[in-house]
């Protein structure tokens, strides 16, 4: 890992960290918190789906686990919110490892794996909607207690920095994976699992490891959600909405790239806000516009918005580079 690889990450994170200094509106900060939350979930998905090639439709299982664990530990057992947050991430990682071990040891791949993850998320949603410890369908409400010790703040700015810190860690994790031997093995499994196995790569271990890291990142987003909105129910925690957001951000931004989920989350959420501005008070029109533009983006930019930037960069580079002078033949 060289400084050259980390420099772009540092620049983006520093630029984002300066946002509260420029933007004082809570509306904008809330918007950016939402963007970073989706970027974090997207990065979680990207580790497994982008680098590992294992497409999950049920990342809400990890998001919900993080959200419920942090909420339940505080509300029912009086555990400190910061500790609850850390335990939420750890539990999410454990659930990821367990689901990964069960699925990959059974040899599930492709659409079968996607359906199994969806099923796990749905099972957890139903369990959460009937189990007393989660508050069943009533959900779990974290008491409003605006103290830093309770991980609650009057201002939106500390929340922004916390979610930015989590996103920064997830970006570093993605970059480390890209540059490491583990990442190379993971990509080898994605490209051709049989060939990777033949070369001695422990494919199951690679996939379970990726799933554990992916689940931990996604659970961190769930913990943050619970702490930010102070309310979790089964539909919010384990519902399909977050699984869709998790895969939408990297697909739009650029799958299997470090900045893809962040870029995708920014584009998707900005699109949603701009559609609202265009639609005015007409109910649902913003969602129609949002959907149409999304279809166009996916249709004309299959490598995501990051891919479009990359192509544009290559095009400009070629245009600026002077054509090579033909060698003159020296006679005599």
């Amino acid at each position, binding site marked *: 890992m060289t400084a*050259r690889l980390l*420099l*772009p990450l540092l*620049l*983006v994170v520093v*630029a*984002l960290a300066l*946002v509260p200094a*420029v*933007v*004082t*509106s*809570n*509306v*904008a900060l*809330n*918007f*950016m918190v*939402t963007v970073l939350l989706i970027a974090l979930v997207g990065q979680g998905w990207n580790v497994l789906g982008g680098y590992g090639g294992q497409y999950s439709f049920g990342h809400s299982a990890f998001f919900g686990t993080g959200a419920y664990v942090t909420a339940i530990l505080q509300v029912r057992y009086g555990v400190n919110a910061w500790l609850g947050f850390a335990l939420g991430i750890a539990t999410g990682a454990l659930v990821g490892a367990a689901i990964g071990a069960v699925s990959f040891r059974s040899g599930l791949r492709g659409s079968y794996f996607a359906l199994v993850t969806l099923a796990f998320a749905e099972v957890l949603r139903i369990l959460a*909607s*009937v189990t007393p410890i989660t508050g*069943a*369908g*009533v*959900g779990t*409400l974290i*008491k*409003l207690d*605006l103290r830093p010790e309770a991980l609650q703040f*009057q201002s939106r700015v500390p929340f922004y920095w916390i979610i930015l810190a989590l996103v920064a860690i997830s970006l570093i994790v993605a970059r480390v994976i890209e540059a490491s031997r583990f990442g190379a093995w993971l990509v080898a499994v994605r490209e051709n699992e049989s060939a990777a196995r033949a070369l001695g790569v422990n494919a199951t271990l690679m996939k379970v490891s990726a799933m554990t890291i992916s689940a931990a990142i996604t659970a961190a987003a769930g913990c943050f959600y619970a702490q930010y*909105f*102070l*309310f979790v*129910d*089964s*539909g*919010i925690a384990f519902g399909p*909405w977050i699984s869709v957001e998790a895969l939408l951000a990297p697909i739009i931004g650029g799958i299997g790239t470090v*900045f893809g989920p*962040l*870029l995708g989350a*920014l584009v998707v959420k*900005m699109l949603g*806000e*701009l559609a*609202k*501005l265009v639609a005015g*008070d007409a*109910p*649902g029109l*913003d*969602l129609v516009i949002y959907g149409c533009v999304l279809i166009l983006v996916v249709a004309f930019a299959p490598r995501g918005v*990051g891919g479009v*930037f*990359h192509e544009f*960069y290559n095009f*400009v580079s070629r245009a600026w580079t002077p054509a090579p002078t033909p060698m003159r033949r020296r006679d005599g």
Partner: protein
Amino acid sequence: MTKVRSGLDRRDFLQTSALGAFAAVTGIVAAPAVLRAQGASVKLGVLHPVSGALSYSGQQGRLGATIAIEEINAAGGIKALGGAKFEPMLGDAQSTPDGGNAEVEKMNAAGVSSIIGGYASSICLAASQTAARYDLPYLVDVGVADSIVTRGLKNTFRFGPGFGVIAKTALDNLVTINDQAGKPAKSVMIVHEDSLFGSGLAKLLNAQLPGRGFEVLETIAHPTPTRDFNNVVLKIKARDPDLVIPADYYNEYVLLARTMQQQRVRPKGIYSVLGGAASSYKFVKEFPEAAQYIMDCNHWFDPRNAKALALKKKVEDKGQFYTYEVFMNYSCVLLLADAIERAASADRAKIIAALESSTFAGHLMPYGPTKFVNGQNQGAAPVNTQVLGNDIQVIFPATFASAKPVFPMPRA
């Protein structure tokens, strides 16, 4: 050859500048100052889930609120503020708590004096909590979860009744109706949607029904949306309960009732608690046979109130249905206008104080004068209605009743 990198490459520049471009396009950086500079009007946040799974209810709620605002403005506005007009800021919670939260942030930035609405309990919980950060008065229109007013939030008020009161009233009235008919019903099946509203209610019913002489044969939960009730109705048919108690939002309720009609499942009664469709003129008009004889314990206007009947006509003249969301939100806006009138100020703290001491009686509901204790209107209570013919009649309590209950349902 080593390529020398500058501090910021094009891709990074594009990514970071997108933020600035967004802020400039939407004007969110400068918006609050500009909006506050506008003239003598009172900004009112009107928050509903007008898109997503709860869009119909949300749109109905918005309709009731905007009619009230138009009427108040047409009648000269807030007199204590020199005739200041209400300026509604309409928000769409998109049927999610975080959608509601984002709208409250926008409304606060725009300088609204107060917010009404939310509709669903989960949206009300999130939105009122965010409003509490800014001491922004929040008047809940419908959300019935008891926890909405038990969190100790000074800014949050609920005009309508909560779960506890609704369930107790519904059970008391059910026992009375059953007793008056010679106790024909002894067994019950509960069908409920699995979010905050349906599950909370099912839990209360399961706890209280056995003590009141009813055996709960089975409780069936389903998600919202659910688009097929065939299996649920087959289960009902197999268990053959005397009473079916649905706790669903509008679409699922209609589907359940229609499926029961199609499969010829006719229990002695369908008794809903906050039945999404059971007290809906839309349901009665579109599916009169499926709706026939369904009883409901729900929010309902005072049928003796001339203003309520005038609003009914006005709404129907617009080609809309007079659902409970309409008159609840209409009443909430009137209540808020009265508080602002008495506060003689659009200051948030003064509005909260005025709501705390409110004795407003000019609303459309059979609640009597409002009296808030810890944010809950003490007089708020549901009434029992029944679909009879092509109309919805109040059957309980006797003070407001416009018809006698028909129970058990006549067999076809």
